């Protein structure tokens, strides 16, 4: 079943490549309420994100940005409504299918990096390719190329605890894109960094977007960070209050 869905997604990519609407994300009346809470974290959201977009989700803490990212990543399931990626509903996928979906199509970047502390920088980056079962030579070449490109080649043997915050987040970015996903979900990627390192990470994301056409959806509370995106969606109390194209 999983493979069939992923094959469908791949076929779709092949059929629609070039027309700009590969793996479009569509949300229809999506709500999410956590157990034991009285309010919806997100409420009746209708949203469409085209393949290749760079979208910023803006809003204060608790407005539902992270919940929306979790829903888009298939990490949480909506209480109501439908989420479709490339025309396929995420709710129809079982746990194994969602796992496979995340492995092949998604990349994640977190505020607190979430690097595995017992893995070196390089091992953290290699992980998605190794889990996907790629052969060693392929993994070696992909990872080496990527690390050199983002300027972390010389620190490949370091453990996360030996890296600076900026280096950790760039490693997390590398891990999120090493397997060439269609979509990268970034939750406050600069939230735990100083301004200099924050800018470096944003520049890296912009560069990746420009070069590979990966869809990037970034939750942030910073207007400066949101300015890097093509589109800014403002949220408040679980609802979208504005949706604008950036200049």
């Amino acid at each position, binding site marked *: 079943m999983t493979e069939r869905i992923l094959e469908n997604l791949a076929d779709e990519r092949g059929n629609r490549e070039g027309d700009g609407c590969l793996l479009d994300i569509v949300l229809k009346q999506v709500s999410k309420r956590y157990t034991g809470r009285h309010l919806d974290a997100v409420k009746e959201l209708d949203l469409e994100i085209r393949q290749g977009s760079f979208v910023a989700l803006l809003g204060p803490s608790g407005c539902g940005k992270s919940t929306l990212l979790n829903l888009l990543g298939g990490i949480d399931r909506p209480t109501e409504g439908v989420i479709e990626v490339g025309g396929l509903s995420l709710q129809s996928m079982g746990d194994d299918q969602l*796992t496979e979906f995340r492995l092949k199509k998604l990349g994640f970047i977190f505020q607190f990096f979430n690097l*595995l502390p017992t893995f070196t920088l390089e091992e953290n980056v290699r992980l998605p390719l190794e889990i996907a079962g790629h052969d060693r030579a392929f993994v070696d070449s992909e990872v080496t190329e990527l690390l050199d490109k983002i300027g972390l080649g010389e620190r490949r043997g370091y453990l996360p605890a030996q890296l600076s915050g900026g280096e950790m987040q760039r490693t997390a970015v590398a891990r999120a894109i090493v397997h060439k996903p269609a979509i990268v979900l970034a939750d406050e990627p600069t939230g735990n960094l100083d301004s200099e390192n924050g800018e470096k990470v944003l520049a890296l994301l912009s560069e990746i977007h420009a070069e590979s056409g990966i869809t990037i959806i970034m939750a942030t509370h910073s207007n400066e960070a949101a300015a890097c995106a093509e589109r800014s969606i403002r949220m408040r109390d679980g609802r979208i209050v504005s949706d604008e194209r950036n200049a």
Partner: protein
Amino acid sequence: MREFDHFLGALSLFRKFVLRDCLHNYVRTVITICGITLGVSVFLAIGLANKTALSSFHDTVDRVAGKANLEIRPLTGRSFDQSILTGLTWLEMAGAVYTPIITDDVVMSVGDDKSEPIQLLAVDYFADDAFKGYEVADSDSSGESPTSLNGVFKHLGVLVGHALASEHKLSEGDKIELAVDDRRFEVQVSGVLTDKGTGAAYGGRLLICDLSLGQEILDLPGQVSQVEIISPPQKIELLQEKLKSELPVSVTVEPASTRTSQIEKMTRSFEYNLYALSFIALLVGMFLIYNTMAITVIRRRPELGTLRILGLSSRNILSLILAEAILFGAVGSLLGLFCGVLIADWALQAVAMTYQRLYFSLPLDSVRLEPVILLVAFLTGVGLTTVAAVPAALEAAAVSPAEATRKMSIELNIDRWTLPFAMVAFVFFGLSAYSSTLPALANFPFFGYFSALTCVFGVAFLMPALLKRMLPVLGRILYPLMGLESRLAVSSLGRTLGRSSVAVATLSIGIAMLISLAIMIGSFRETVIDWARQTLVADLWMRPASSDGGSKNARFSAHMESRLAAVTGVEAVEPWTESDFEYAGMKATLGGARFDLVEKYSNLNYLSGRSNREVASSIRGKSCIVSESFSIKHGVQAGDTIEVPFKTGLMPLYIQDVYYDYVNDTGFVVVNRDFYRKNMKDDGINSFAIFVKKGYEPVSVRKRIFSELSGQSRFVVRTTGELRERILEIFDQTFAVTYALHAISIVVAILSVMNALFALTEESRREFGILKYIGLPAKGIKKMVLTEAGVLGLYGCVFGIMLGFVLSLLLIYVINKQSFGWTIRFTVPFDFIAQTFVIIMFTSIASGLIPARLASATQAPEVVRSE
């Protein structure tokens, strides 16, 4: 190839995710592995000791029997009349050959008033060659090559086992002094046996002599103890039937292997109970593993969430955590095998005395390394570790990818599960109560142990609910006494209810095991002391010297009774004679007592509550009393009639009453001495209870006995005080292994507390950092961690003692009763419990010292910044 790549990938992930974490958290790793190592080593040591004891017996039976496939043995007593042999000549016509032998234990003097029990095997040197399983070493070639039996026909010549010869440097021509009954007997070494065939029986600690010399040494004229028969295989059953029909009912005809299975049956309770006790250390170790793995999953939850987000399936996560447990299990079990082999000799010495005293006389010098036992111990260690890790592995597999951004959710989960867990606990308690009422299965108290186990699990499941209620109470008590740190400590434990519960449950179970055993042993000891005080009312006790040296069948001759009675100061002499007999396929002891004297002087206690005078006066002719263990083992009681084999044939005996007795667990049937003598054709006396006239001191009467009788006889006389001391000495030796096993369980439990404290400390580093920021000094943080250790220890003790009481009831009234059939009066060793409490509290707080030091060294800015 792709599968291979996947395998390598999994291996690589295991190395990076699991192995590195194990190395990084090396203290936790070492503690966990130590717990498994201790459990497995104890289990293995007891397994090897048990196996060695039983296989030594098996081996000796095989070596003595040699090629014989049938043997004639007495059903009662140690020998039978050799005139039986004259009626066996037809066996040769049927193609069978046979030979009589005598086996018995004698005591060898080894200088400096020391002696050791050895086996005497008397054989017919003219028997068919097929029976000659012994070889004599050539003294000119260092005992390497066997030669013929030159010189064995010398007067008083014996062949000496290789182990005995090498230990005492015996060679041809040396003289050996034997203590037999109350006599001395000197024999001469005619040759040294090789360690092959019969020569290796009894561990090489034996003497072989000619049949007639054996009869002379043991004072068994015209008697033999076995007839070994080699029958054509196809005729075994036929010959067995024919022999049974022709021979008197006082002997039995069975294959030699029957004796092995009989001894296995007899020792089963003792053996299985030892296994069950050694299993406790493993059980406590399981909780330690559960604790470790649960803490690992809690601590690494965000990492597991990240792995899930990166595409690892829940099955992969499950495998990863189980693989970690298997690694712990394998390393701990391998080390356990090593340590187990090291301590197995000690375990053997600890249990050998009980085997030898209660079941069979065999030297048990060193353990045999049985590969099967090693494998079973290893697999048990790995298996239990894996099983203990299953809940944590399932919890890890259920970690949602969203956990990558959250922390500590399991503590919320545990909180939510408190009520369902409590309900499960009550189901366990119900099962425990019900199974405690069920009878034994094949003489093994399976349901008793099941009841204890379910009770233990019940407490483990109830622990979160108990702590949830009790921690705030303690917090309110401690705050005015110990200040803010105590409140912080209690609240920290409350927030991490999951791991606090596991740590307290583990400690409670370890303590409960110790307390329950202490109550059971203490109660048993008090019962035995009471029994000795009430029953051993004579002033002096006399038995042959060889009996004191370990010879079971040592006797005085009948005339000793009158000579002893004639000693000045002796008022009465109560003789006691006993012989082993087989009842329902199991060994028991038949005793002959003078009930006229028992009625007048002794004080046996009966289950019916009737007086000693009333019961003793009713024992005449075919009536008897039986011990409590015989009654329970064979399901007989007062008013029943049992058929007991005597030399004169099977006799129906009416059971007048059942008396309390703690001498052995195989049981006694006691008849009047006159009846015993007449039907057992045995005038010998095993021991005397001597009553001293008023106005005479027992010690001075003892001196007179020695001065008047020791010229012709070698014996030991003890005062009642000395005998009681001796009984308690044997009692304490018997239970020494039990105490040792439980001390180890406690060590494992303390490791568990230490483990929990390390995890707690690590998990609370941010909290410590913040506390430092807001002004709590390092000393305060140290105090907080030590208070946490103390609180865990306190609750471990409180719940452990309570659970211990319940388990002790099960041990005393269910498990012991079904295994050994002894009534034990419940007494509580308050002093021991108080000591345990102090030691555990001290050890728990001490186990918090390292975590406290680590916690107080937390660098506040670093921790807070890293978050």
